[in-house]
């Protein structure tokens, strides 16, 4: 023990006299700190990323350079030889090198954290002990790797080569943002020790948990430290004359085995890749921005003709009226907003992600998780920051919501209702018609609930609540013209409504005509979907809706598309935004299918349905005049209603129908957020709200089509969203 203590004391004392050690431990990381601080906008929110990069580089340096090259040098200079004849073994020499490395490194961490706090105003850490503990294990692991390198090389030159071979890729991996890496490199990164160090550190810095929540990384690093130290003692060589067999270099691989295993596992499981994507997403949501001198549409109808919005840490920090404050003084990166209008991100409350808006049967057949992800990306690209799926395969949208919600995949925030509550032969069941009998039960469980009693309805609602749906949707429709559906019993709808209320879930009801609306209101619906496309709704019903605070979603876009299909027009897909976001092959297939026999016969069928846009417009206007809260839904996924931009068309149809632009925009932002039950965090430009923002050229309050001329989309505080979205599969 005495040997250990004097050894540690001397190793430390000597290294403190070594200018190279001081330089690489303290000066070098600080150079990177300030360099990256400028590059990554440390002042304006990028500091967390900078800290994690600098501390990773520091760990690599003290581990590989410090331990690896130093020990080889001591051997080459015949220093270790002197120890060989004294009564001391390799263990205290190696262990004291580890301990000294740790003691030298930890002040670096403290200095970097302190500077980050003082110079770049990084928020105080919630778990500083976790960070120090985690980094301690990291530095021990890398010093152990360094020790092995020193043991298996024959000269200092060799050690420098091996160290560089390991250092350079790890350095690059630490500096290159994870999201910028191509997929194959993201997989390769899982084999690289520094990745686990960096990920664990970011997780702790970003408050994604403590030391204990990073056990895979902690375990891998600990194993490396232990195996590395053990092998280091076994392979220790005192004299340069003791050459090492070339095969012994394989021991280096042995110490890297934990990472190899981790890499293979991750290449298979990908959950660390997902985790890194989430962390990278979180880091890019840390920016501080000042969008200044824009017209602000606040969401609740109020307009500030000249104002500025400060975004910080993913949230709206402050809203300024009048002349803009100085961005520099606020440590924010300025974004020019003059001549533009800033709105809360748009919301589409009625979409079906499982269909793609194509018009031939073939277009519907395609259905994969990546298609769903693409659709949410298309929404975000179009300035729609939240959507509500109102009828999709439950499991796949639950997965999608988890994946986009965590930030692993970039896309609009997803809300979802569970399977549709309808009845045997009712609307919703027709999609099962062509399903093979063998598959039907499974498909029905995903899409439909057909309660036959009040009790069954109740237990089905509660079951869905347990699966964490965001709402309930029931269908009341008996069809029109040559379209016939069985209509759900009004009593059952009532029990669904009661159960939904108890479960704390808003219930929306798909309606076909006035009596459906009446029954929905009796059942305590929160929102009416569609209203009626063929029947004028009596004023009394709208009065009841206003009185009960029920929203009205007219879904004019889908009706407009139905009309276009009847006329053989492709106008709904000709808008420039549609052209930008929709897959080209889908657009091409629509154009060719429009004159196909399949569509001809469908048109003939549709001609028997008495849907009329003018009636829907009249109903919307009546609802508006009655003071009903309006919300925008599009029924995207249906023929000619493509995911993403449809809500812009919806708003244009509303203004054409006579709704003032300000009311229309409010329906697409604040009102929609209220229906979703999240108006305490999205739908408004207000301090404390999520920074989901859309900036458009011109003034949509005068010309609603201005909303399509998007100049900026900010999502949860992240800027430059559009360039990152994967709209067409893998290629960006």
């Amino acid at each position: 023990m005495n040997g250990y203590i004097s050894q540690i004391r001397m190793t430390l004392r000597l290294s403190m006299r070594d200018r190279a050690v001081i330089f690489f431990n303290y000066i070098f990381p600080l150079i990177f700190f300030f360099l990256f601080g400028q590059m990554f906008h440390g002042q304006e929110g990028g500091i967390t990323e900078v800290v994690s990069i600098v501390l990773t580089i520091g760990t690599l340096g003290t581990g590989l350079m410090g331990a690896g090259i130093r020990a080889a040098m001591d051997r080459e200079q015949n220093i270790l030889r002197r120890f060989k004849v004294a009564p001391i073994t390799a263990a205290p020499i190696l262990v004291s090198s580890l301990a000294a490395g740790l003691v030298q490194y930890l002040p670096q961490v403290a200095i970097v954290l302190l500077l980050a706090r003082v110079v770049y105003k990084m928020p105080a850490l919630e778990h500083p002990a976790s960070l120090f503990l985690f980094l301690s294990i990291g530095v021990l692991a890398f010093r152990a790797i360094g020790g092995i390198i020193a043991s298996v090389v024959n000269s200092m030159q060799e050690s420098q080569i091996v160290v560089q071979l390991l250092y350079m890729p790890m350095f690059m991996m630490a500096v290159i943002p994870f999201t910028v890496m191509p997929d194959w490199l993201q997989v390769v990164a899982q084999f690289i020790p520094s990745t686990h160090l960096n990920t664990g550190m970011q997780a702790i810095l970003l408050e994604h948990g403590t030391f204990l929540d990073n056990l895979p990384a902690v375990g891998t690093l600990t194993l490396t430290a232990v195996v590395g130290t053990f092998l280091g003692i076994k392979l220790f060589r005192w004299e340069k004359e003791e050459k090492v067999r070339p095969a012994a270099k394989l021991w280096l691989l042995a110490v890297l085995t934990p990472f190899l295993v981790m890499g293979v596992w991750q290449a298979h499981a990908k959950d660390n890749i997902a985790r890194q994507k989430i962390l990278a997403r979180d880091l890019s949501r840390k920016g501080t921005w000042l969008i200044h001198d824009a017209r602000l549409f606040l969401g609740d109808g109020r307009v500030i003709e000249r104002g500025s919005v400060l975004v910080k840490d993913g949230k709206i920090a402050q809203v300024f009226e009048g002349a803009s404050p100085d961005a520099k003084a606020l440590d924010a990166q300025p974004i020019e907003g003059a001549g533009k209008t800033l709105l809360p991100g748009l919301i589409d409350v009625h979409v079906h992600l499982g269909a793609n808006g194509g018009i031939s049967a073939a277009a519907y057949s395609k259905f994969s998780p990546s298609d769903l992800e693409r659709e949410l990306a298309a929404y975000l690209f179009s300035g729609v920051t939240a959507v509500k799926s109102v009828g999709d395969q439950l499991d796949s949208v639950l997965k999608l919501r988890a994946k986009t919600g965590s930030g692993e995949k970039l896309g609009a925030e997803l809300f979802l209702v569970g399977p549709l509550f309808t009845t045997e032969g009712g609307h919703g069941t027709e999609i099962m018609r062509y399903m093979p009998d063998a598959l039907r039960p499974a498909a029905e469980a995903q899409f439909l609930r057909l309660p036959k009693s009040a009790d069954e309805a109740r237990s089905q609602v509660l079951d869905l609540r347990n699966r964490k749906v965001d709402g309930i949707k029931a269908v009341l429709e008996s069809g029109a013209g040559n379209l016939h559906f069985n209509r759900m019993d009004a009593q059952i709808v009532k029990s669904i409504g009661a159960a939904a209320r108890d479960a704390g879930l808003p219930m929306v009801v798909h309606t076909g005509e006035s009596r459906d609306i009446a029954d929905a209101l009796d059942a305590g619906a929160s929102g009416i979907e569609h209203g009626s496309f063929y029947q004028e709704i009596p004023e009394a019903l709208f009065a009841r809706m206003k009185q009960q605070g029920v929203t009205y979603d007219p879904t004019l876009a889908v009706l407009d598309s139905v009309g276009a299909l009847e006329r053989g027009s492709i106008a709904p897909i000709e808008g420039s935004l549609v052209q930008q976001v929709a897959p080209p092959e889908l657009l091409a297939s629509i154009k060719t299918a429009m004159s196909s026999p399949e569509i001809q016969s469908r048109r003939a069928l549709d001609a028997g349905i008495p849907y009329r846009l003018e009636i829907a417009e009249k109903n919307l206007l009546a609802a508006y005049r009655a003071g009903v809260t309006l919300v925008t839904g599009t029924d995207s996924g249906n023929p000619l209603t493509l995911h993403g931009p449809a809500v812009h068309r919806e708003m244009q149809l509303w203004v054409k129908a006579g709704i003032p632009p300000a009311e229309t925009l409010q329906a697409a932002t604040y009102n929609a957020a209220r229906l979703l039950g999240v108006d305490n965090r999205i739908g408004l430009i207000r301090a404390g709200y999520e920074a989901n923002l859309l900036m458009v050229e011109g003034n949509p309050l005068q010309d609603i089509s201005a909303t399509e001329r998007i100049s900026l989309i900010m999502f949860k505080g992240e800027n430059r969203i559009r360039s990152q979205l994967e709209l067409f599969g893998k290629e960006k």
Partner: protein
Amino acid sequence: MESAIQVASLRKSYGNFEAVRGIDFEVAPGEVFGLLGPNGAGKTTTVEILEGLRPRDSGEVKVLGCDPALEVRALKDRIGVCLQATNLPDKVKVHEALEWFASFYSRQADCARLLDRLQLGEKRNEYYSKLSGGQKQRVALALAMVNDPQLIFLDEPTTGLDPQVRHEIHGLIAELRGAKRTILLTTHYIEEAERLCDRVAIVDRGRIIAMGTPREIQARTLGQSRIEILTAQPMPGEIPAFQDAEKSSLDGEGKLLTVFSSRPARTLPDLVKWIDQHGLDLEDIHLKRPTLEDVFIELTGKRLRD
């Protein structure tokens, strides 16, 4: 009193190469014993086995009563070792180095006094890298004594040092000898062995080929002195048999005569008389007693330092 070192039938091979091929010797307490031989003779291998740094293939070895193969830690604690060509970290101060190494041992010498004795007192706060070659070697000697050892191994302690420094180190070793320390010294410098050692073993190709006091070794071999005569004029070709002379030879010019003799005191007058008889002017006369080098050449047919 028990021997400090006992070695019997010691053997060690590296692969096919037999480095030590059966060595026997004993070192008494207080004795300075030298292993003399050329590079590659097996000296260092032998010493490293004694120090516990290397396992032996066969033979009996006892160092201070310990078997170095079994009790290496205990042995290292009691011996002092000065290796050839070792270094210390650049930025270690002289006194720190001593205290640092002393901390490894169960018994510690007084470091301050040790430094004074090795004339390092003034340099105690100097960085190792600032020391001269001789000072560094004195530090190495000091390190060999930090545990006040009963037995000191000095492995080529002056190799690579300039003559003046070597002289200095010799003085220090002589002092140790005066202090009755047991010392095992390996060297390939003849004069070092002659001057410092009580007894010497000459090692060649893994074997001891001669052992005893330097004088005994010289005497036991042929022990001829060499007489060299330089004359102003060439000598006649016919050289007579001088008294007690073994053989004689003349150089090409005929002016330098070399005569080997077992009793030069008798040969020399005879030689000088002969020169006078031939009317030659004697320019120089040189008498050389046999050295260990000569012994070595005689025993092995090669020089120590090739």
